[in-house]
């Protein structure tokens, strides 16, 4: 037991927290970008513009059906082949954003689909343009329904950043690996710390989502 706590030296904890910081940094930036891009893509797929929506839909399907690990590899090692060369943190952000946007686009599309057709018809018959109806009537209702799946997608995103150890992103899991790689007695304490840190971040996210959800459903219409 003594040796268990001996693993949590000041240096090791600092090194772990440095990793956690990169995890949070990459997660937050990717969440912001993928939320914007995912919404745009989801709407683009929903509105059914000839060819355009079909192509967008197909690309979304392609990305959704590939492992993130492969997309990470591609972004870091294959994009330079066509002239796009990124340092490791931007590369991780780009890969996460591409993958998670595709996942979010599906959530957004099915969220919009879940809004009754009558809403659009009513809005249009009241003289709103299609765009107005979309932004003022349909999307606000759709987003309310989408909050739980979107947040669980964000939780996935935070967890998925651990996969970027494959391109040596200096995030939480990678730093833990370096620590126990140098002293095997630190292995179990590091895994406990990993589980605890990821749990805290993600559980906080899911509590936040519940609060937002409750507030929104209580809000007067």
């Amino acid at each position: 037991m003594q040796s268990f706590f001996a693993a949590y030296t000041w240096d090791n904890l600092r090194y772990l927290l440095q990793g956690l910081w990169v995890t949070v940094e990459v997660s937050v930036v990717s969440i912001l970008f993928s939320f914007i891009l995912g919404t745009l893509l989801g709407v683009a797929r929903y509105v059914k513009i000839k060819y355009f929506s079909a192509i967008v839909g197909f690309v979304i399907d392609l990305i959704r059906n590939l492992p993130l690990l492969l997309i990470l590899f591609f972004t870091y090692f294959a994009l330079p082949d066509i002239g796009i060369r990124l340092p490791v943190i931007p590369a991780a952000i780009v890969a996460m954003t591409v993958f998670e946007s595709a996942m979010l686009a599906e959530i957004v599309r099915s969220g919009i689909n879940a809004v009754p057709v009558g809403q659009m018809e009513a809005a249009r018959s009241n003289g709103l343009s299609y765009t107005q109806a979309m932004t003022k009537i349909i999307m606000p209702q759709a987003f309310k329904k989408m909050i739980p799946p979107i947040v669980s997608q964000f939780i996935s995103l935070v967890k998925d950043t651990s996969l970027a150890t494959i391109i040596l992103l200096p995030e939480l899991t990678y730093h833990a690996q370096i620590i126990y790689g140098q002293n095997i007695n630190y292995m179990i304490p590091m895994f406990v710390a990993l589980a605890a840190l990821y749990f805290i971040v993600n559980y906080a996210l899911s509590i936040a989502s519940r609060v937002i959800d409750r507030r929104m459903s209580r809000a007067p219409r």
Partner: protein
Amino acid sequence: MAKRRLRPLLLLVAFLALALAGCGKSVADRDALAHAKATNKLVWGVKADTRLFGLMNIKTDQIEGFDIDMAKAITKQILGPKGKADLVQVTSDTRVPMLKGGNVDAVIATMTITPDRQKVLNFSQPYFNAGQALLVKKGSPIKSVKDLVKGTKVIGVQGSNSVDNVKKAAPQTQVLQLSDYAQAFTALKSGQGDALTTDNGILYGMSEQDHDYVVVGGTFTKEPYGIAMNKGQDNLTKAMNTAVDQLRANGTYAKLINKWFKGIPGFSLKEVE
């Protein structure tokens, strides 16, 4: 109806055509030496998981080792005392794509010069002579590569030529490939394999870190390490060779060997030079 069904297929073909068109090109062709001189900076791919050669120091958050010191010394030789050596972490698995993609100018990361690699990369003159050996737990029945019989498992690292070498030297053994040396050593300690194989220098570093593990059987290959650059970077290659010559001549090389390998069997200046 049939037309609609076909659309995904057509799109797939279009996607593949685009992807294939992207294959041939490469933009890592600019003169790396001129670029380094213009920016006063050389970008090096180095290991961070390999004791003695390149290991992350958790206390200082700096990578330390013989390869690191060499990279810094060579940078100063080429770019002058104000030249900056940027260190980017690589593993055996990632160093070739990083070079080919132009993410790094040069790799100094326990990399053996092999004919296969020479087809796609430029190498400097050898700067260190290692040889492949085995690392086992103290008291293991495995004493040399001959003991790697059917039913044994040996751990290696993806992208290292030691994996190919051990497959040739002991075709009966099962080879498990992990992504870096930290992972590989952890796997050995967890009992995932009976031995770990790579170059003796790396293995001595591991043994120094955990005395329950010992290097056995002597070396069964010769592994001359070189600095790797992308194919066609002949100016940079020439500059590297000159710099290594200068470091040997002015005593820096001997000093660094002494700093990192003093007292480790098989690594006197005479043996590695």
